[in-house]
């Protein structure tokens, strides 16, 4: 029996509560993860003891806040293996980071007739910014065709990426299929043609050791709230040469160098991309989350959620009337499934009555739903606080739902 990686009730206050009289089985970490007490305390400490705006004032509180904010950036840089902390831009989350790249960089880099390569498994946040960019610039979207099991092969990448490809934008891990995509191979291909590799790391950075150089990424976007951090903070990392060239999309305070009545010049990296007062508490909370995850070890977390994902895949596939989507192996800790003749929403409702929290819907991946030929799915996703017992509770809940609806 695989146990959670941590003392769940000690580290995560939320697991001390019950849902409808049951202990909470939280299987929705792909939507957002739960928060350890240390992360909550770090933000509380900021607001109680040294709350001030950053980069602006010389008083003690401002110095302390500015230092903490800078230290958070350093921690993020070390966490993803960035060469320079200046390459780390704090955003609201993955969505904002990807939009910034499409606007600020894509508009300059993509010419009419060029192509942008995507996969049909992309989350809407790694799809719509590129659709809109293609419209603005007269570029073409090339989709990498998926294998029948929902994995993405290097062969298919080879077919989709060519001399006209300027941008390849792929998720490292699918938020539905649990497929783990060969991003480094895609990067190597697109670099051959002088294009750039944009990686949506929303589902991967929380779950595996990340080294931007090993991914071959030119840009990497991810969210704090899926990795034990707070909502409203995320990271866009970009290679300095591209960030220097990229235009800001938010203008205002603290992102400028010199302003007169008619013109303005931009601040140095990373500040030119962080107009306005940043989410200081969020950055501090994210740094604390990184510390928490690093102490446990990203390799251990990776092994843990992969194992749970594959065991859940097998356990669900054994239940009569259940269809499971995505590759069998390797399968990340996110497992989408359907139960015959029970709509995912009804399924999730019955699960909830048993204290089991899953997501039901299209998971912001409608083109993928079209590819799968379903309207929606249920989805169970795992993290360090889950164990094999949670898979058992999930399977029990499915059997309950079948009894309830197929009586």
């Amino acid at each position, binding site marked *: 029996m695989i146990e959670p990686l941590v003392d769940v009730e000690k580290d995560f206050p939320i697991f001390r509560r019950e849902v409808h009289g049951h202990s909470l089985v939280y299987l929705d970490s792909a939507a957002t993860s739960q928060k350890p007490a240390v992360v909550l305390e770090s933000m509380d400490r900021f607001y109680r003891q040294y709350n001030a705006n950053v980069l602006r004032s010389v008083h003690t509180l401002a110095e302390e806040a500015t230092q903490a904010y800078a230290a958070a950036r350093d921690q993020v840089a070390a966490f993803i293996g960035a060469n320079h902390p200046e390459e780390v831009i704090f955003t609201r989350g993955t969505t904002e980071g990807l939009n910034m790249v499409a606007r600020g960089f894509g508009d300059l880099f993509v010419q009419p007739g060029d192509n942008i390569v995507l996969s049909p498994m992309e989350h809407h946040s790694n799809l719509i910014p590129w659709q809109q960019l293609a419209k603005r610039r007269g570029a073409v979207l090339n989709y990498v065709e998926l294998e029948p099991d929902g994995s993405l092969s290097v062969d298919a990448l080879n077919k989709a990426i060519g001399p006209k490809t300027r941008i390849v934008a792929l998720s490292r891990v699918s938020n539905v299929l649990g497929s783990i995509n060969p991003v480094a191979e895609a990067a190597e291909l697109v670099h051959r043609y002088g294009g750039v590799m944009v990686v949506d790391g929303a589902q991967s950075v929380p779950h595996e050791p990340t080294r931007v150089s090993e991914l071959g990424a030119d840009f990497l976007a991810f969210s704090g709230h899926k990795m034990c951090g707070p909502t409203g903070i995320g990271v866009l990392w970009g290679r300095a040469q591209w960030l220097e060239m990229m235009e800001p999309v938010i203008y205002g305070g603290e992102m400028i160098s010199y302003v007169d009545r008619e013109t303005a010049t931009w601040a140095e990296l990373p500040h030119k991309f962080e107009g306005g007062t940043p989410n200081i508490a969020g950055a501090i909370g994210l740094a604390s989350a990184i510390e928490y995850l690093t102490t446990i070890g990203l390799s251990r977390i990776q092994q843990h959620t992969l194992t749970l994902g594959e065991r859940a895949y097998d356990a669900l596939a054994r239940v009569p009337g259940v269809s499971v989507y995505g590759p069998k192996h390797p399968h990340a800790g996110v497992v989408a499934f359907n139960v015959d003749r029970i709509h995912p929403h*009804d399924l999730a409702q*019955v699960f909830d*009555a048993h204290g089991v929290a899953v997501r039901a819907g*299209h998971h912001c991946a409608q083109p993928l739903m079209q590819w799968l030929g379903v*309207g929606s799915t249920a989805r169970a996703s795992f993290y360090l606080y889950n164990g094999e017992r949670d898979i058992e509770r999930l399977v029990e809940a499915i059997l309950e739902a079948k009894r309830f609806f197929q009586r």
Partner: protein
Amino acid sequence: MNLEELYRETILDHNQSPRNRRALAHPTQAAGLLNPTCGDQIHLELEVKDGIVQDVGFDGHGCSISMASASMLTEAIKGKPVEDALALARHFKAFLTGTPSPVPLGDLEALRGVSQFPSRVKCATLAHNALEKALSGSEEGDRLR
């Protein structure tokens, strides 16, 4: 939580054997609606003559709440004046937020439990919103396929 409160027998029955789930031969009004958060879809067709809903049919896919609600709605408005059908939709939506309905709602009353599940109200009202869209006449693009 009592699941039986939400999923009453009537709802499960309408979900398993939906009434009027068919295309009409001569629709005069139609509307499609999506529930973007769930991906639920409904297409509703009406044949209105002399201000009366002569016939009504629907198709689509969604959870048992949305499909049962659509099935119940078609039964409730068939043969009724358009104004009554619209009033029913209005009263039903208010009913789901806790306002008693001045008109009988028939089988739709079984959806009472939905009011305790705010995230499911959208499911229960999808067909009613489609009805309003179809009868409002403002959606020219949706009139007849």
